[in-house]
């Protein structure tokens, strides 16, 4: 009975996990690569969904609407970076400000609090209509997208600019004495991070058939939970592992949640459960070794 319910959650968790994996990848860039605790994510995820939904609703092609969503997410991330680097607003506060303002922006973008896409064609509609179990093509689609983005991120982080970005998070003083404008690196990195988050929001909106202004709430905590789970399973030794950990972690996180729901966890308690998961993961090492956990951040 227990194993049967375990097996049943696998296809759904794979779909969900892969769809949300790009959020975790985005958070890897901000939290792990740049050491910047960026809370824009809750807003930029919904922004991606809002932009794609409104454009599709207005008759724009689904793929073009995704491009627009990515660009809008990139812009939102850059703005958070500018708040921090140019206006010297604390990193956490900069993200919270942006996230809060995005709530209004997202309502403006959609013109109301949600848009249904069930009656219009999305990027995923042709896949839904194939003559087979819907999970197979959908999961394959998300798998391909996620793997392509992961590999592109890995490659980027091994270029000269990628090195400079990693060093900005690791040792800002050092890379500045080597001639890198670390402010620009922070802005660009947050842009990339939120572009991935918005891409995820857009794909999720098209997959579930609607966008909602509240769809991003709790995204940052869920993403962190995914990263922590993934890093425990995969390790953090190389960039390739770090990005793989985001994907694996995202899938395992969704699996844990689905199993929890099947075992009687109320959907309303989900965010509580996720938060507790993150607190335990971050807190236990601190209690054990009487020192700070693994999350090391700038400006906090």
């Amino acid at each position, binding site marked *: 009975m227990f194993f049967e319910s375990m097996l049943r959650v696998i296809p759904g968790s794979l779909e969900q996990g892969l769809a949300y994996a790009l959020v975790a990848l985005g958070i890897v860039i901000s939290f792990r690569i740049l050491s910047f605790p960026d809370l824009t994510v809750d807003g930029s995820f919904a922004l991606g969904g809002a932009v794609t939904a409104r454009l599709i609703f207005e008759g724009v092609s689904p793929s073009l609407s995704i491009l627009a969503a990515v660009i809008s997410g990139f812009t939102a991330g850059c703005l958070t970076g500018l708040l921090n680097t140019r206006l010297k607003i604390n990193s956490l506060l900069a993200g919270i400000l942006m996230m809060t303002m995005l709530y209004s922006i997202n309502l403006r973008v959609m013109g109301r609090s949600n848009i249904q896409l069930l009656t219009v064609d999305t990027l995923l509609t042709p896949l839904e209509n194939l003559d087979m179990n819907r999970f197979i093509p959908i999961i394959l689609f998300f798998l391909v997208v996620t793997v392509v983005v992961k590999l592109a991120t890995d490659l980027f982080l*091994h270029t000269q600019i990628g090195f400079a970005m990693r060093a900005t998070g690791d040792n800002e003083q050092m890379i*500045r004495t080597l001639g890198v404008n670390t402010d620009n690196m922070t802005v660009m990195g947050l842009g990339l991070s939120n572009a991935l988050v918005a891409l995820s929001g857009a794909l999720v909106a098209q997959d579930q058939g609607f966008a909602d202004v509240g769809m991003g709430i709790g995204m940052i905590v869920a993403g962190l939970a995914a990263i922590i789970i993934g890093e425990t399973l995969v390790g953090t030794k190389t960039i390739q592992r770090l990005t793989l950990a985001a994907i694996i972690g995202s899938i395992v996180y969704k699996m844990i949640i689905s199993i929890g729901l099947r075992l009687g966890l109320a959907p309303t308690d989900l965010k509580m459960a996720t938060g507790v998961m993150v607190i335990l993961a971050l807190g236990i090492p601190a209690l054990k070794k009487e020192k700070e956990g693994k999350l090391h951040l700038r400006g906090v």
Partner: protein
Amino acid sequence: MLKIENLTKTFNPGTVDQKVALNNVTIIIERGDFVTVIGSNGAGKTTLLNLISGTYLPDGGRVVIDGIDVTRLPEHKRAKYMGRIFQDPLMGTAASMTIEENLGMADLRGMSRTLRWGVSKSRSENYQRSLKEMGLGLETRLKQSVSLLSGGQRQSLTLLMVTLTLPKLLLLDEHTAALDPKTAKRVMDLTQTIISENQLTAIMVTHNMEQAIRFGNRLIMLHEGNIQLDIVGEEKKAFTVQEAVKRFGATLKDESLLG
């Protein structure tokens, strides 16, 4: 080569914590000079380096490198002129990145960075050769994370990173002070070799009178933001710790510069 003119810096001006870190200091350094700067805590040594490198801006005065006024340039735009090594061995390298990746970044000092690979194959072989010459056994560990290295190894790697691009000016900020005596000696010997082999212009800040006397061709002693002693060439060669004690005994003892 380096002209420091009437450089002045006051911290917390107008408050009870007001502190004049540098008071109208002028120093002209010739190409190939190796200047040691000695002084106690608060004498203005590190402030001097921070103003040269642009970590912060002076209240007055100018910094001119090879005729180019860099006084108002932000830190990252001066990078092409100078390399800097800090007291804390952790500050010169990015710990989460590999030895090879750190060298790759240093190779591009002051240059614009593109989407080309951060470490090219041919450069990697070059790094391996340079590491081998250093004789610390790091040549087989190119792909290992720098966090696995000891303080002395990290400081030596930082030295190598500076020499990849041979900047006009090398700034050493008590770079051996945090190391154990044996490692400190090895790093200092390596520093001496690199400076003389490449005829670099260098400024070394130190806390240790013996070190300040033994190295370099010019010695500057700072006290409360002013130059107290500036000797060069033969006069510097003839200078001894005993002489220093005789002339500045009281200050030196108070400030434990003889240790």
